[in-house]
């Protein structure tokens, strides 16, 4: 990048908000995805939409790549500045602009931390349901751009189900508004959904209108242990078939159970093939009834043991096992890949079996846990990225995991996005026609290909 561009950026946002030291640049060369790192030329921290607009206009004219970034907790290398250029750091734009309790919406800037929104709306008896594992760190803009999910996805859906409107700065620096506070809005193309989950390839989100929902009054948690994986699979299907949509329905496979037990000693039987953790929430009477029904279904489907939490302390105890899943696996080896291959929920046992088979075949360590109720699995591969020979096996295993998911009628990503990490599988999932249609959209909105180039849909 030329000095004149850096100077121009300094004029737009002020000297102290333009970072150019090699130390600063190095610290924006990565995100939470192992194995990807590239230095940007500059890091810029805008404070207003107008500043973002000026930055993009400048980048567009100069054909400088722009990588929009929040806290950088994403797991698909979506914010790695692979072609140098500008890292556009949105964390200064972190205001909660409005909580509208009559329309049940909030208006926020993209740099706001997700859990800060939840803390603010809690006082009104409301929640913002998307709850990725990084909810206390991730920004709203990042989670909207990555279309993040979370534990409550089964009942509440993912981020796109809550984004009602956006202010977006387009690649040429023009500011666009789409959607709004209308619950019913069928005018035009659904641009709000298009930019949600676009991973920063189509525009820069500068303001977000989200839907809030009433906080559930009560919740009940259950844990079921299965010696047989198929019984667990049948239980998942049977719960939904009994017309109960739990807020959360989680599964841990045997390698994960063994690791968690070894690490956290929470009392799980190490020979179990699956543990299910279920939480129902809502109106107290309904929660009571649903919990009883879930208990019945679990027993009918040959659960070897079922525990129902009587109070908050017992609930915490049950969830301790699930919370320990990632830390326990991550502590085994230096490098941790948390994938999010997703399958239709009735294929969950098939997916887990296939992952375990793949792990054996390539002699790599994989624990699988995740959101069984919505089929969103987290095969978690632990390894040492410094060991070349091992990494060859790891990447082969990864290829096989994603092709299996697609074969089972699944998708590459349930909540982490594509970025660079899963780019090479995109054509397998979508085929040439759909992928080309996606590229046409990218080319139309960003003709100079400056926005997060090479990501999500690849080179255009």
């Amino acid at each position, binding site marked *: 990048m030329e000095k004149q561009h850096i100077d121009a950026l300094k004029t737009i946002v002020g000297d102290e908000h333009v970072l150019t030291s090699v*130390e600063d640049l*190095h*610290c924006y*060369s*990565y995100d939470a995805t192992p194995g990807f790192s590239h230095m940007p030329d500059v890091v810029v921290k805008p404070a207003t939409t107008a500043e973002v607009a000026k930055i993009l206009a400048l980048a567009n004219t100069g054909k400088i790549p722009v990588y929009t970034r929040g806290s950088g907790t994403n797991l698909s290398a979506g914010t790695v500045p692979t072609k140098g250029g500008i890292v556009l750091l949105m964390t200064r734009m972190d205001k909660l602009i409005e909580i509208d309790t009559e329309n049940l919406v909030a208006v926020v800037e993209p740099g706001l931390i997700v859990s800060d929104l939840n803390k603010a709306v809690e006082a009104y008896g409301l929640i913002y349901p998307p709850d990725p594992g*990084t909810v206390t760190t991730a920004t709203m803009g990042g989670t909207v751009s990555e279309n993040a999910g979370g534990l409550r996805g089964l009942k509440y859906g993912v981020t796109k189900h809550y984004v009602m409107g956006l202010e977006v700065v387009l690649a040429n620096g023009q500011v666009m508004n789409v959607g709004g506070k209308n619950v019913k809005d069928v005018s035009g193309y659904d641009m709000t959904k298009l930019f949600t989950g676009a991973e920063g390839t189509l525009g820069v989100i500068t303001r977000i209108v989200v839907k809030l929902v009433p906080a559930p009054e009560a919740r009940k948690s259950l844990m079921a242990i299965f010696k047989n994986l198929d019984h667990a699979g049948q239980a998942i299907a049977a719960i939904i078939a009994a017309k109960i949509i739990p807020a959360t329905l989680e599964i841990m496979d045997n390698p994960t159970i063994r690791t968690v037990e070894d690490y956290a000693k929470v009392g799980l039987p190490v020979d179990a093939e699956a543990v299910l953790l279920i939480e129902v929430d809502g109106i107290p009477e309904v929660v009571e009834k649903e919990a009883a029904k879930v208990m019945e279904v679990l027993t009918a489907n040959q659960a070897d043991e079922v525990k129902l939490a009587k109070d908050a302390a017992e609930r915490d105890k049950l969830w301790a096992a699930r919370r320990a899943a990632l*830390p326990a696996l991550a*502590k085994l080896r230096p490098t941790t890949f948390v994938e999010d291959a997703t399958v239709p929920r009735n294929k969950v046992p098939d997916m887990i079996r296939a992952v375990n088979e793949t792990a054996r075949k390539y002699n790599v360590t994989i624990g699988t846990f995740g959101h069984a109720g919505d089929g969103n699995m987290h095969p978690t591969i632990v390894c040492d990225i410094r060991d070349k020979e091992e990494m060859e096996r790891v990447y082969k295993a990864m290829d096989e995991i994603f092709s299996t998911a697609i074969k089972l009628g699944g998708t590459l990503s349930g909540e982490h996005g594509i970025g660079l990490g899963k780019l090479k599988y995109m054509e397998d999932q979508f085929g040439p026609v759909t992928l080309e249609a996606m590229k046409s959209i990218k080319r139309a909105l960003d003709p100079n290909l400056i926005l997060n180039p090479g990501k999500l849909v690849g080179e255009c």
Partner: protein
Amino acid sequence: MSDKLVTAQAINEHDKELLADLQDALANCMKCGNCMEVCPIYKELGTETAVARGKLALMEAVLSGKIPISENFDKWMSKCVSCKACTVKCPCGVPADGLIVRGRQAAVKARGLHPVKNYVFKLLKNRTMFDLALRLAGLFGPLSFKKLPRPMAAVARFPMPGLDKRRVTAPFAASPLRNRHPEVIKADKPKLKVGFFTGCTINYIYTDVGQAVIDVLKANNIEIVIPALQHCCGTPIYMSGDVEAAKLLAKHNIEVFEQYKVDYIIAACGSCTEAWKIEFVELFHDDPAMKARAEKLAQKTYEISEFLVDVVKIDKNKLGPVNATVTMHDPCHMARGIKVTAQPRQLLKSIPGLQFVEMKEADRCCGSGGSFSLGNYELSRKINDRKIANITATKADTVATSCGTCRMHITDGLVQNNQNQDVVHVIQLLDKAYKAGQKK
């Protein structure tokens, strides 16, 4: 400080062992960014270089030869209050706080110590000179410091190096604690004998805390030895990356305390206690003989509140009323270092008449970071403002804590925010209760 850039190869040749074990520890950071939630520095600065994930990435980059150990590297390594919040939060169990100290150590090796630190540490290494300097500071303090109309608060009359002119500190004592007492304070048929490690702040500044410790121990019929030759625990030096100097002080203190037959060693400061219980042992990780000696003393070291509750099991019926509404700030090295938070609360709650109110985020760093606030006053003030807001929200009239530098920094914060709450050590309130009990 040298301006030449030092490459990874050069350090590698200089200290291969340091590099090798750092590499493995650093590789365990999976860059999830969870540390961002809890890092007080990141909350104020909002950049990756401020948070543990970034600092560890910088160290990795130095080790792989991608970046040199530059002035910037040094600067970012120093921007850490060592509050350990990242380490507690880390899902992978990466001891980021310790690694950052190692990063500082590498910077010190490559670039040398900052001249001011170099000067202070040289003085600190010489116990006699250090003692003389601080005693003179106490004698001539009134010439250079103006007392404020509140206990233990003063501001500098003239600009001083490393001290912001607005900043409220505490006056040096006219006579240090150890000069006011005999080395052995006898008790009638004592049930226990303890060695009192005073630490610098209690000996030279907060003698009121030291006096309270002595009086409370006396009230419990415990014989007290205050070894005259004890010296600074070395934590500020260790945290700055000058490990060799820290080892000298640790060895000196171990040798001094070994000469006395005491049942326990007690300290009234989280950081000093942590030094004895954890740092001394770690410092000698490659010296089995010294490590064994450090471990032996570590096992009998207690922070005063912990000692009174867990070992002495004090008789709470002897406590008289203290009318105060008290909130408590947990120093980082108490909360996450030696993990002592229940005992001070237990003591406070057992005092009749005392109303205890918990503040929000009681264990969040106050921004002092020991000597961190000297070099980073503005930043440490911003962190402290959050603490002051939490204190104010409790409507308490007194803040209790267990660390001298926290006490000083919170006092400064209260003055800067026009608040007039009293800041005291937990043990001072307990001492008051004992005295009120005797009057009964």
